[in-house]
């Protein structure tokens, strides 16, 4: 049924100079599923996510989300307010602020919208917001360091912080760009567990990932991108055995 799709990418093209970064991408993401996008470096995975959040405007095509075309003059904050949050490949956090404030800021955006002149409110009276932020920090194992500067975290911890910042917004669609890159195995497993837990809550996710262990533990559906085009898609089991995929991307890798 048409209604079941949260995101519908149709006919998206993007060219940088002479390079065809995305060619005729068609992709549908079902409500409540985890859709993985895999492919070699430079295949256009991050570019595709960038077109979804108005970081890049595609040359042609449309990206429908919640009845709106995200490529049609939407602003990044407008898209976020519709319910799309993104974890970036290089963590985008607020280095000068405490972990607690880092997580409170997205929660405020969710509650109060893109602009609120709340100059005469005391931040310290936002107890409910603080509790919620602490709850998410705790989920990501960062509660003990809630009052330290976010800039002093390790790369893996910054990534987890960014995840908390996205999750507190309860997005309708969560975009994850290599959420476990730079994490130790222990933390990777923890992140997988967390993402599984979120999945049970019905959040729809698109995940870009190189770690096949992560992909096959989480994905319901996989699209394989190579040189800007989708060369295969299907259920994880189909993808594992797909000859074209083995050739283009997986090579001799053990699955």
């Amino acid at each position, binding site marked *: 049924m048409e209604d079941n799709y949260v995101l519908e990418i149709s006919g998206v093209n993007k060219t940088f100079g002479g390079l065809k970064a995305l060619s005729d991408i068609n992709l549908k993401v079902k409500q409540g599923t985890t859709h993985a996008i895999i492919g070699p470096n430079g295949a256009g995975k991050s570019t595709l996510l960038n077109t979804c959040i108005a970081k890049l405007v595609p040359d042609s095509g449309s990206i429908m989300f919640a009845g709106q075309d995200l490529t049609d003059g939407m602003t990044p*904050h407008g898209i976020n307010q519709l319910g799309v*949050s993104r974890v*970036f490949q290089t963590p985008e956090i607020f280095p000068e602020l*405490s972990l607690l404030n880092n997580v409170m800021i*997205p929660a405020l955006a969710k509650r109060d919208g893109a602009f*609120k002149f709340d100059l005469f409110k005391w*931040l310290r009276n936002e107890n409910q917001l603080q509790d919620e932020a602490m709850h998410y920090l705790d989920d990501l194992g960062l509660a003990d360091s809630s*009052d330290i500067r976010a800039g002093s975290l390790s790369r893996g911890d910054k990534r987890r912080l960014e995840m908390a910042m996205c999750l507190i917004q309860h997005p309708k669609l969560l975009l994850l760009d290599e959420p476990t890159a730079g994490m130790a195995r222990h933390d990777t497993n923890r992140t997988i567990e967390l993402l599984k837990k979120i999945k049970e809550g019905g959040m729809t996710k698109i995940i870009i990932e190189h770690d096949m262990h992560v992909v096959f533990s989480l994905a319901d559906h996989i699209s394989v991108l190579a040189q800007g085009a989708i060369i295969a898609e299907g259920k994880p089991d189909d993808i594992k055995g797909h000859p074209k995929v083995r050739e283009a991307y997986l090579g001799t890798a053990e699955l």
Partner: protein
Amino acid sequence: MDSVNPSSKYKDTLSLIIFIVVVLTAPLWGKFIGAGYPDLLQKFAIFGLFAIGYNILFGLTGYLSFGHAVFLGIGSYTAAWSFKLLTMNPVPAVIFAVLLSGIFAAAIGYVSLKRTGIYFAILTLAFAQMGYNLAYSVLTPITNGETGLRVLRDDPRVLDNALGVQIDGSPVGNFFGIEMTGYSGYYFCAIMLILGFYLAMRVFRSPFGMKLIAIKSNQTRMEYTGYNPRPYLLAAFVISGMYAGLAGALMVIVDPLAGAERMQWTASGEVVLMTILGGVGTLIGPLIGAVVIKYFENIFSAINESGLHATFSFLPEWLENIAVTIVSPFVGDGWHMTLGVLFMIVIIFMPGGIMEAIRRLTAWVKRMRG
């Protein structure tokens, strides 16, 4: 640390009380540091307000404006016109000055904030220089050009006339019978300073303030987190412009004369120096920076060559002459040389300004105590 870190109600109340006491007793303690006279204390309060407001833009959002003196000028002219046309009472002068500088700040900010970084700074500078030159040329009917706008005895002052308030001698600001000269002038400024400080504290401790710091920290993340940074920046710009307008009005209230020179780029630069010297992004730092600069300006610019000769008179005459030659470029009109050197030392060794020095010192003392 003065940022939006969770700060207790108790701590904030305590610092506010200490602040009020220190400001209100300034005429007493000022004597001990040679600042116990009203002219200088008025300057402390006025430039302190200017810097506290400027810091809400520069300190919190990181947007460096090089043209905030234009709002100082607008505030001054507005206050002078309020004195000329309505009444010598400073209250309407303050209200009109703050409102008008706010309106101008909204317009200038709207255009300037289309750019960031160096381009933003250049745009604000361009607007300020435009204001300065307009005040000297085509706007002469409003600004009285080079002579400066003076409040005269035979100005209309419709409100005062209607209420039968008489002006004897040259007109001075008059707050319901209290003349705005000397210490009463200072206390009027002091009350404005306390209000301005309290408002700045509210900004620092509000979600709004935290979001401003977040914009400084990572504007990209703000946008992808669902915020539209533009209205936040504009609000900060307008608030800081209003503080500058208030400071400009106070200048006229304690001395009813408005000149275009206070809109010059050097005045815009001075508030940047005050903010950085005191500590960018800290609540009290910019005020301390303003006080330190105005205090040393007062000392250094008063020294002249004969004073130096007297100071070094214990030396043999040839050595005395050499000493005077070396030191004299740094005093009197050359005081800006001293300021420049001071500023370089701070930037190189203590980028966080005086507040960072205090922080390091307290940390060191704590360590020494074990």
